[in-house]
């Protein structure tokens, strides 16, 4: 009996120790649980913004989310490098060593057939397609006319007093050499030539939008999910903000000299918005403003509107149509927009009257 009692007592002690151990384990488990909870909540993403000033002659802003600033800057830099690539490819004023770009094409295609990379080939096909689609209102072959206006504008900005308009004959002659069909693209051999030796390409109306779309797609490919790419006001929202809310974008008030005075805000979720305005690039002749967007119908700056803003999913399309709609009257433009479910637009006339397409801002 004595030994039994002793056995029981030792067992009793063991049970006590066992329960005690459980009681010990509880706070330890709680602490471990808290640590896991903390670890999960610290895989939090913060919002960052990076600016670049060296592409497309304008300010570029990338806004997105990442765990750290370093990670975000690395991702943004990849987008930046892509933008540099397109900036150089579409530059009609400078050449870059080893690169067959737009300036080279303008110099050589009149006499030769020039071999080009797939990237440039794709763009030229796109440009030709957009010209046809917009009935010539957005025409990348308008270079010979645009060059005349560019030269007069530069002179007029330098010396406002003696600013002049190009003469009509000059413009009409140049206008004879703006047929997109004279841009010959040989897909099979990857070659480009001009059937008209006076043809010149100027891609200002669609290059930014096209590049922004390409770079946005690239960003998605490298794993960026929610970001905003803004190249000189050409905006592409990828996804929503991290909290699921849409990106809020202001549209500049044409009447204000201040770029950040907004006349309307729109909410974007996986969408692009581009504005064409007469206040972006212009010069003044005898008190009247002449902007940089030239109407292919009469070779003079279009003055139907102070600005046209277009919303479309694809940034290249938004850029193309903001130029096209800027070059035509409201009735014509409205029909085009209403017939295309992918397009929404906002027109602001010279008198400040605003028209919206039926789905604008939805």
């Amino acid at each position, binding site marked *: 009996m004595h030994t039994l009692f002793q056995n029981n007592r030792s067992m009793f002690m063991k049970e006590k120790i066992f329960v005690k151990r459980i009681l010990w384990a509880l706070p330890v488990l709680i602490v471990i649980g808290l640590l896991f909870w903390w670890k999960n909540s610290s895989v939090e993403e913060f919002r960052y913004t990076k600016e670049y000033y060296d592409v497309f002659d304008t300010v570029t802003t990338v806004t997105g989310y990442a765990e750290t600033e370093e990670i975000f800057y690395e991702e943004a830099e990849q987008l930046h490098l892509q933008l540099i690539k397109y900036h150089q490819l579409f530059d009609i004023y400078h050449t870059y060593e080893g690169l067959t770009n737009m300036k080279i094409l303008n110099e050589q295609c009149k006499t030769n057939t020039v071999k080009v990379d797939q990237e440039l080939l794709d763009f030229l096909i796109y440009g030709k397609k957009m010209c046809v689609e917009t009935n010539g209102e957005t025409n990348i072959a308008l270079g010979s006319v645009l060059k005349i206006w560019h030269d007069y504008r530069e002179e007029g900005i330098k010396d406002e007093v003696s600013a002049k308009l190009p003469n009509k004959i000059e413009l009409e002659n140049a206008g004879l050499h703006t047929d997109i069909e004279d841009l010959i693209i040989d897909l099979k051999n990857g070659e480009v030539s001009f059937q008209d030796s006076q043809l010149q390409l100027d891609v200002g109306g669609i290059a930014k939008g096209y590049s922004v779309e390409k770079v946005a797609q690239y960003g998605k490919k490298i794993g960026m999910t929610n970001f905003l790419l803004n190249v000189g006001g050409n905006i592409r929202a990828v996804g929503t903000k991290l909290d699921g809310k849409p*990106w809020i974008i202001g549209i500049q008030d044409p009447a204000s000299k201040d770029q*950040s005075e907004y006349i309307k805000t729109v909410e974007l979720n996986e969408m692009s918005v581009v504005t064409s305005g007469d206040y972006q690039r212009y010069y003044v002749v005898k008190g009247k403003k002449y902007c940089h967007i030239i109407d292919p119908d009469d070779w003079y700056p279009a003055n139907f509107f102070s600005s046209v803003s277009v919303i479309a999913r694809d940034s290249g399309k938004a850029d193309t149509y903001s130029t096209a709609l800027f070059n035509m009257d409201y009735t014509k433009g409205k029909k085009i927009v209403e017939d295309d479910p992918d397009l929404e637009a906002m027109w602001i006339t010279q008198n400040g009257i605003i028209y919206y397409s039926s789905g604008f801002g939805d």
Partner: protein
Amino acid sequence: MELFIIPVDLEIKMKKNDWVLIFLVLFVGLFSYGIVKIVQIQSTKEPQAVITQEGKLVATYPLWENQLIYIPTKENWTNCLKIENGVIYMLEANCPDKICVNHKPISKNGESIVCLPNKVVVIIENGIEQEVDGGTY
């Protein structure tokens, strides 16, 4: 064959020290979690304007101190900024387009004034958040 007598008294007597230890472990765990959370929360800093030229930092100025700022130097400046009433704006610049001069005064987080010809950039840090994420122009 052994007979087991189950003790009637199963009450576990927790000594005071046991409780002290348990709560100590709990406390340390919660305390360290709290510290981590506080460190994560950004410390409240004052709004300031960060000025760069050609990508290089020129200086930062708190928005609470009214003053004139000459870039790059007072003797030989291309851009002149003014801070007053908690905002900063471009007072004068020698660039042809004057976009920077026409820009309204800025004070909100991330707002910027850019003089592209002179490569001068002014950005606000630690300001209150803007209403928009971007703008077309």
